[in-house]
């Protein structure tokens, strides 16, 4: 596969390490009443879609950016590649 890195352009997927569902960005609030339940779901429950999937890739043999790659698990088509940091900010993870 080829991943179109937002900063570096198209790079072979062999330069990357795969982590999984980009929902891992949405770490729950540890102070919430429901924190134990929230963290249990966060740590263990994942969707396994046959189709579009937002996932985390780490450019380990490159610039060490974490990316959010929107990829179709059936066809391997990639529709979007974003810096994970920007996605995290978009989800309100700024300090």
């Amino acid at each position, binding site marked *: 596969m080829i991943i179109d890195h937002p900063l570096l352009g198209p790079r072979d997927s062999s330069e990357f390490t795969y982590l999984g569902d980009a929902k891992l960005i949405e770490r729950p609030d540890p102070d919430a009443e429901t924190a134990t339940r929230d963290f249990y779901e966060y740590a263990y429950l994942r969707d396994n879609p046959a189709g579009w999937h937002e996932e985390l890739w780490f450019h380990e043999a490159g610039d060490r950016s974490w990316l959010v790659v929107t990829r179709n698990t059936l066809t391997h088509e990639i529709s979007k590649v974003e810096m*994970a940091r*920007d996605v*995290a900010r978009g989800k309100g*993870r700024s300090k």
Partner: protein
Amino acid sequence: MTQKNRLDGGQIDTAIPMNFKFDGKSYIGYQGDTLASALLANGVRLMGRSFKYHRPRGVLSAGSEEPNALVQLRSGARQEPNTRATTTELFDGLVAKSQNRLGSLRFDAMAINDRFSNFLTAGFYYKTFMWPKAFWEKVYEPIIRKAAGLGSLSLLDDPDVYDKGFLHCDLLVIGAGPAGLMAALTAGRSGANVILADEDFTFGGRLNSETFGIGDDAGAVWAAGAVAELASLPNVRLMVRTTVIGAFDHGIYGAVERVSDHVAVPDAGKPRQILWRIYTQRTVLAAGAIERPIAFENNDRPGIMLGSAIRTYANRYGVAADKRIAIFTNNDDGHRTAADLHAKGVKIAAVVDVRADAPRSMDFEVLHGQVVDTKGRLGLTFADVKLADGTIRTLDIGALGMSGGWNPNVHMTCHQRGRPTWNADLAAFVPGGTLPDGMIVAGAANGDMSTAGALRGGAQAARAALGLKGRLPKLPAAEDAPVNLTPFWYVEGCSRAWLDQQNDVTVKDVKLSHQEGFRSVEHLKRYTTLGMATDQGKTSNMGGLAIMAELAGKTIPQVGTTIFRPPYTPTAIGVLAGRHRGQDFHPKRLTPSHTWAAEQGAVFVEVGNWMRAQWFPKEGESHWRESVDREVLATRGSVGVCDVTTLGKIDVQGVDSADFLNKIYCNGFAKLAVGKVRYGLMLREDGIALDDGTAGRLAEDHFVVTTTTANALPVYRHMEFVRQCLFPDMDVQLISTTEAWAQYAVAGPNSRKLLEKIVDQDISNDAFPFMACANITICGGLRARLFRISFSGELAFEIAVPTAYGDALMRKIMEAGAEFDVTPYGTEALGVMRMEKGHATGNELNGTTSALNLGMGRMVSTAKDSIGSVLSRRDGMNAADALMQVGIKPLDLGDPVPAGAHLMNADGPVDAAHDQGYVTSACYSPNLGHAIGLAFIKDGSNRIGEKMRLVSPLTGVDVAVEIVSAHFIDPKGERLRA
């Protein structure tokens, strides 16, 4: 020696004869021959034995689709099983042997299987060898493996080199027949970067096998001209002997170039093969078509082959398959073979056509009928033809061509789940569904079966792929005959008519599969093994589908088709491995003191990719334990030195560094003073320990984190995840400095005295107490880092210098330490000392253990949030009888304590249900004089002093042990604070 079937003409060079041997007998062929064509020229039809029934077999085809003529090529370490004689380029000195026989090829003892064929039908594996169960491994499988099979490996190291390479282009053209050549010419003339690859050793594809012309030239001459023009274009790369084996995601193709397969031994410096990874936005697939056989009784005898193969042998190689030939056909193409052979003076006994309206010929007899049986034990001698009026006519022939129509070669169109669609005119599947990114199919592969259609399709495909505008240039004139075919798959009423010759699947097997309920095409394939051999059923799948359709009362497209997977043809594991084998399997990382350690005669061990000194044997030491015991005692007695560079080092800088480490580690770091080091435990989010190490604060906004050797990379990756994905606006930067600093542990009561001779600062206990750290200088000005940390439990330091000075520092330490008899120690002594001290490593942080298990439950701060803190508090992680780390010592001090053994109550059953825990690490402690171990046991902290049984049923160990504190040495930690 005469080549009795050699004809005039063809693309062989009779001026260059080549000697070769098959099954020990010498023959002569010519340059330009394949092994198959040269054998046929010499009258050799029998080339192998079939997989299951050991039936005599010869060539079926003249290309890479060959199911039968598989030979063992070369000898010694270069011996190569299952090589297709039809694609093996003849070279002088070639040696080949037939395979899968017991005794000689002519008198194969295993041919008895053929007599018992009723027991070996479809699914026999599943039905026959069911019980007794114990028979499977010892009796059935070895016999089946031996009886059924292909060639054998030499079991010697492959002496050749395989390479990998990367290529990029605007257009990849796969196949260099008329469509591929025209596509490459069109694209090449436009200035685009083009790669043209073909598996054959000569470009031209079918043009080399046919007699018809293109423009004013013979087809092969036109092809040679096209190749010459392409070779003159700097933007075109011609890759002969190169098989594109797979179409992968996003326009990435795999291709194997056989650089040296056509010579006995690769030229100096040349690889045997190269695996190319080709990146291209657009691809023209011009893979041609493959002719299919017709199933009839005993249609597998040597001499019976595809009609197109007979034509190829005659036109390209100047070889008559035999002196008396007949053709069995359902379409006009069979007549073309007969005409070509007749023109070369070969006697055509008859063309047997299933069609009543078959074309007639002045040159040979055309019979309306079907071939219903053949004779000839080791090769075809007679064929019985049943004529339309029901009479049988026997033909006296040595070769019979089967022409059942052509299948577009859709293999590569399926590699991205593309599913071919049915074309009724061709009675064949054509490319369909989703093709690989950017792929356009042209020529016969796309169902354009004429030469003119191929030229036109190739030009149009290249223009479409590159977006070329303007009018299509005039193409040379070529034959444009329509396909004229009546679908015909098998002759009724036969009992042993072969569909898949490589896996010995007959028409009857397919019927049996249907009768027994294996009716879906995928079930059919697996039950009968149709199409599952190394040729992936290139010549056999269609026949099986047609019969299934007939039995089910459906049409072929309703039955569906299986799809093809990479690789296109069998690919050597060696070329996939490339240079990554043996010592080069992965890179080797050397520590800064490696050269010095090697000089000392160190024994090295691979840790991660690092080579670390395991111990340093001294003269007179005959066992590793002697060396390790000495190193431990010398360190605890005076001073030792160990290279700890391999531990991961991560520089953490920025205003929020302390906050960041508070998230990473379960224990607190915010209040760590500048100039101090703290032990830290990292958890995963599920509360399981990830890694441990130390973090030293060199400045308010600067920490140095260390990780274990094995986890240096995963921990760094994890920290970057936390930084970028969870806390994107923390002011913190990370960089791995593992390789930037050489670091040595200097441990033992004399370690301070030793280092005082090297460092420029005061490192007295007051000035530099336990857990201090600092940027310092050594040797009068060299920048260095000093940490007062101890893994051994002794008074100890770790000193780091820029890597370039690592070797010099080790030599300096040894020189300065001479008066203290400083002793270098390796990873074994390091392990012994950490076990004596009760320190955990990877054996204990094994992916299943929590902070609580490790005896560090209270370290998990409740005053702050950190990764893993919430789930650490779950009930299940805090059960009353949770595993806890303890020490183990044998009651009889002479007994062993094996790692991996399990602990059982002293009284009570010894079984998994009563398991109390297990030993994670164990060693002999030279300080205590007996074996010790670290273990996890249930409710361990309350069981100190308990006597238990340590058992390992696998190794026969059953030892009485006592549970003790894991801190065997200096439990109060007085030594390290000295």
